[in-house]
Structure formats: C-alpha cells, structure tokens
C-alpha cells in the first residue's frame, strides 16, 4: 500500500520546519512542539487544489457514518455532505447512531441504490467488513474516513501514528518518566483507537518507570461521560491516595467524565486525550482543571480531502488518489488552547 500525503501537507510540514528553525527551537526537545495552527482555509495552495477538483454533477454518493455522537464525527459528517453538494453531487446520508447493526444495514441499503461511490466514516472493522465486501462485489468504489479497509480506494485520516506517539510522549515527559497511569483501552476494532493504543504501549517501552494500573478501564461508546466519571470515582476510592498520576484515553469523551470526577477533589492527576471535543477544550482552558492535552483534527480538511479523492476517482484520475491521505493534527495544551480555538473556530 502506498502512503502519500497531499502536497498541501508537505508545504505545511516545510513551513513547520522553517518556523522551528526561525524560532530557534531545538529539535532534540523530547516533547514535540505544538504544531502551528494552520487550517486548510488558510493554506492558499490547498485552496487552489480544491478549486481544481472535477465536478460531481450527476454523481450520487452514499455516506454511512458510524455516529454523530461526538464533535469530530458530527462535523466530518456534515462537512463531507456540504463539500459533495458544492461539487455538484447528490448525497444519500445515513448515520448509525453508534449501532453496529444499523451501520451494517445502512451500508446494505446504500448498495441497493447503486450509488457512484460510498463513503464510510468511522466504524468497526470486524462487524463492517462483510458488508464492505458486498460493496466491492457490487462494483461500487468505497472511500473511508478514519477507517482502514482492504476494500477502500482511499482512506482519509489523521496521522494516528503521529497523534498516538505524541500523545504518549507528552504524557510521559510531563510525568518526568515516572508514575502510574490509568488507561481507558478504547475500541480495538476502531483503527484510530487501535493505532493510538499501540503507540502508547510502544512509547512506554522507553519509559520503564511508568506503570499502567491494571485492570485497564473499558470505555463505553454511549453514555461515555457519565460511565467514565463513575469508573474514575470508583478507582479513586479503590486505590491509595496519590497512586494515580495520569489518565490516558484514545478519545476525549471518557476524560471529560474523568475530569468531572477529579477536578472537584483538587487531585493532582493529569489527563491526556484526543479529538478536541469542545468540552475538553473548555477544561484545558481552565488552569485549575486536570485536563492537560488533546489533539484537534482538521475536520474540514479531512472531509474536503475525501470529497476531492472521490471526484478525482470518478473522473478517471485514479492515479492521483492515494491509498491513504493524511491530515496533519493540531496538538493542544494549556498554553495554546485559546489560540487554537480562536484560529480554528472550535
């Protein structure tokens, strides 16, 4: 599988490197610098590329999203619909309310309509793969967002290896390489979570004095915040005071609940998540909150990139469509949270 990044991102990476040199930051710094906040709309080259996208007029695109329960999936779901319509295409949009069975049914129902392409946004690889095999068998090009599939012509995703290792290294450095952490072990069937969790384990190999408290915590996809709050309250009662130094999760939702459990107690426990949920950003912006770090994903850029790849593919320009298109993440901490929110409108 070839992995390429859009040209816009190469320019962005070059700009980051130049900025690093100009500001005199050391590349030996173990904790990665917070990425410059550059949304797609502020990148002229990216705008130019989008302007040259082939029309989708007369094309019908089915969308099967896993859910719109959290901000990331909701915005991507809305944005890709808007982008396809802007390009002249017709959209058939479904979202499965986080139900695996409905997600499979949605894909099956889309196949029936013989659309020109189907886009799957998030999902569980195990339960969805048989339905995606039907998409492939029906000769319908499949595109995915944050979902790795052997049947996908193109998957647009954040660079979750970068996200995962940066998240883990940031936490490890904040703990000065020593401490005990609670881990919400996420959803192994969901590709971004699996990569981030594996990245955590990889990073911790180099931090032998950071110990994961067992058993790991299991997060729920629905009622996540309340469930996580209860779980953390239970853990704080179970474990000796001061035993927990940090909590890690592959997404923000459980940590919002964790912060609700920890912040009123004034405990010195640091929280690290991903997705830049508005609730998480509010907490990070609060200097008294335990929430330290999250990662924003450029949702508009992700949606636009997927629509672009669909248009290129259906226009016959398949050689311009990479197997994977990576979007550059934006790392958010207490120092830059207000700036990131201001610049990106999140």
């Amino acid at each position: 599988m070839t992995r390429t990044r859009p040209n816009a991102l190469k320019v962005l990476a070059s700009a980051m490197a130049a900025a690093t040199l100009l500001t005199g930051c050391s590349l030996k710094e173990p904790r990665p610098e917070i990425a410059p906040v550059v949304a797609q709309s502020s990148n002229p080259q990216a705008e130019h590329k989008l302007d040259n996208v082939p029309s989708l007029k007369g094309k019908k695109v089915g969308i099967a999203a896993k859910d719109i329960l959290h901000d990331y999936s909701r915005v991507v779901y809305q944005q890709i619909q808007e982008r396809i319509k802007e390009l002249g295409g017709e959209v058939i949009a479904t979202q499965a309310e986080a139900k695996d069975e409905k997600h499979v049914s949605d894909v099956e129902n889309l196949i029936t309509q013989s659309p020109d392409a189907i886009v799957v946004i998030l999902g569980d690889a195990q339960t969805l793969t048989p339905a995606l095999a039907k998409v492939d068998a029906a000769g319908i090009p499949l595109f995915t967002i944050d979902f790795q599939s052997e049947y996908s012509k193109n998957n647009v995703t954040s660079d979750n290896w970068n996200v995962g290792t940066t998240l883990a290294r940031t936490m490890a450095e904040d703990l000065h390489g020593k401490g005990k952490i609670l881990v919400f072990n996420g959803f192994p069937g969901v590709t971004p979570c699996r990569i981030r969790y594996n990245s955590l384990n990889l990073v911790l190999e180099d931090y032998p004095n950071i110990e994961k408290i067992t058993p790991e915590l299991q997060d729920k996809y629905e009622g996540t915040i309340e469930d996580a709050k209860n779980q953390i309250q239970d853990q704080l009662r179970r474990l000796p005071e001061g035993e927990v130094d940090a909590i890690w999760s592959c997404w923000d939702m459980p940590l919002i609940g964790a912060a609700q459990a920890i912040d009123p107690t004034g405990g010195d426990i640091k929280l690290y998540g991903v997705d830049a949920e508005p609730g998480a950003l509010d907490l990070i912006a609060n200097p008294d909150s335990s929430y330290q770090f999250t990662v924003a994903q450029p949702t508009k850029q992700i949606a636009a990139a997927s629509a672009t790849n669909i248009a290129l593919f259906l226009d016959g320009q398949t050689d311009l469509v990479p197997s994977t298109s990576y979007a550059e993440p934006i790392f958010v901490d207490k120092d830059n949270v207000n700036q990131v929110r201001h610049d990106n409108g999140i």
Partner: protein
Amino acid sequence: MSATLVPVDEAPAPGASRTKPRLAAWIGYAGITAVLLLFAFGSPFFLTASNIATILTQASVFGIAGVGLAIVIIAGGDDVLNGGIDLSTGAVAGLAGTVTALAAAAGTPGMVAVLYGVLVATAIGVVNGLSVTLGLRPLLATLATMGVAASLELVFSQNLKIAVTGGFFEAARGSVLFGIPLVAWLMALIGAAVWWVYGKTSWGVNSYAVGQNPTAAQVAGLDPRRYRLASYVLSSALAGLAGTLLVARLSAAVPGIGTQILLDIILVAYMSMIFSRRRLVSVVGTVLAAVFVAALDNGLTLLGVASQWVGAAKGLLILLVLASVTLRGRKNR
C-alpha cells in the same frame, strides 16, 4: 377444558357487526400497503429482488426475537404494566451471542456453539418464568434478569468484540435459498410453527385465554402459571437464537448490543396488533411488523430522507398506522 379450536384472533370482536370487523382487520394492511406503495413509487430500487432480500435479512433477528416476546404477551396479557412483558429479551440475545462466539472461538463446532448460546438463554427464560409464576411482576422480574444478562455478557466478553469465523457462521450470514436469505427462511419457519401452535391448537387458545382473562380461565380449569412459564422459556430460547444469528450477521459478538435491539423487538411485537381485527398481539403480525419496520428504515433511506429524520419519520408513520387501527376499533364498538 375443552377448547373450541377457532383461532382467537379470527373471532369477531364482542358487540361488533360481522362486516365492520372485517374492515378493521384490513385497515392495518391497508395502511402498510400505502406506505410500501409510497416507497415503491418513490424509488425504483425498492422492489428489486436484492433489496427485498436485504429487508428480509434485516428483519429476521427482530422477527424471531419478536415472536418470542409475542408469546409472552399472548400468555400474560397485553397490559404493559401488569401483563406479559420480557424486558430481558435483548440482553438475553446479547448474552447468547457472546456465549456462542466464545465457544466458537474456543474451537467448538458452530452448530454446537449456537446450542450453548440457546441453552444459556433458555436457562434465563426458566428464571424469568419461575419468577413470574411465583408472583413477581413481569416488568420488574425481567428488568432484573436483563441486568443480570447484560452484566454476564460484559463479564464473559470483557467488553470486547468477539470475532466469529468459519464456514458455519459465514453460511448463516450469506446463504440464499431460492433467492431468499437463509435467515429469512428461518424466521418464516419459526413464525409458521409458532403460529400453528398458538393459532391452531388448544394450547394456543388456552394461552390467549389466560392472557386475556386469567380469572375466567382459572374458573374454567386452566392453570395460568403453566402457560406463562412456558412462554418465558420459549421467549428466551428464541431471543437466544436471534442473538446467535446477530453474531453471524455482524461476524462478531458486540458487547451491549442487547440494549440497542430491545426497543425494536418490543416495537414489532406490539405493532402486530395492527394486523389483528381484535387488536391482539399475534405471531403472524409480529413477523409482518418486523418486515415492515425493516422496510421503513430501508425505504426512507431509498427516498433520500436525511438519516436524522428517519427515526422521527419512522415513529410518525407507526403512530399513524396504530392510531388508525385504534380509532377504527372504537367506531366498531
């Protein structure tokens, strides 16, 4: 008791003329036909063979579990608070699926693994039945076992999806006979068998009798406990079977799926009333309701109704159909 073997659901409503109930019996069919015609004219894909197969596949799990719940309502009465209800049916389906997946993952042949799942489900059905016959309110007793089953599912699965592979489950998921999915045949077979038992035998007539008027049935020499115990056991066994079919469909046991499917199971069982001239829950009506609910999801998607509106549109259509039946019934009194 010597039962007259006239199917209960076909008997005329008390006090009604012999012509009006016939119209009432058809109003549900008419409403549903109108909706389906709307889909057929609205989308050229709706009546294609592949789409009908898709709808039948999607209906099967809810249809089979719904038939089980219909049996409970038949023998316990359709009073939601005090009558027959089995809130554990979704969680039992989830637990049975998890047990099946774990057994299959441990190398147990697929058919035997399914048997394990159904047996575990049946055991919970026995607990439900005994609880109700001992005098516990069905709503509360099955709420308790729902919690137990959901908790056991999490314990066994460790809140992780358990993948199932192998020819048996792939065959259960993808096999087609005469153009119709195997699971749809299974739903039809179970529906027909249960319809025969509850519509054509003295056991079925007696079950309706203890459900509709337990005091009168007792005076007539029937023991309601016997019929109710059996109904809960059958309900859980069918929920277990539905759970294993869901595992095959998703190629994995999914923790917590029981709570996701419970409402649709209850919906199809109660919605069966629209196919009854006396507005009673029925087996055939449950199977038809399961197909209709699946067709609603499918048809609304085909019409391009935005996904956020599908739930509301579905609820509104169901409400309209049920209201038309209820209003028609009042006029006939």
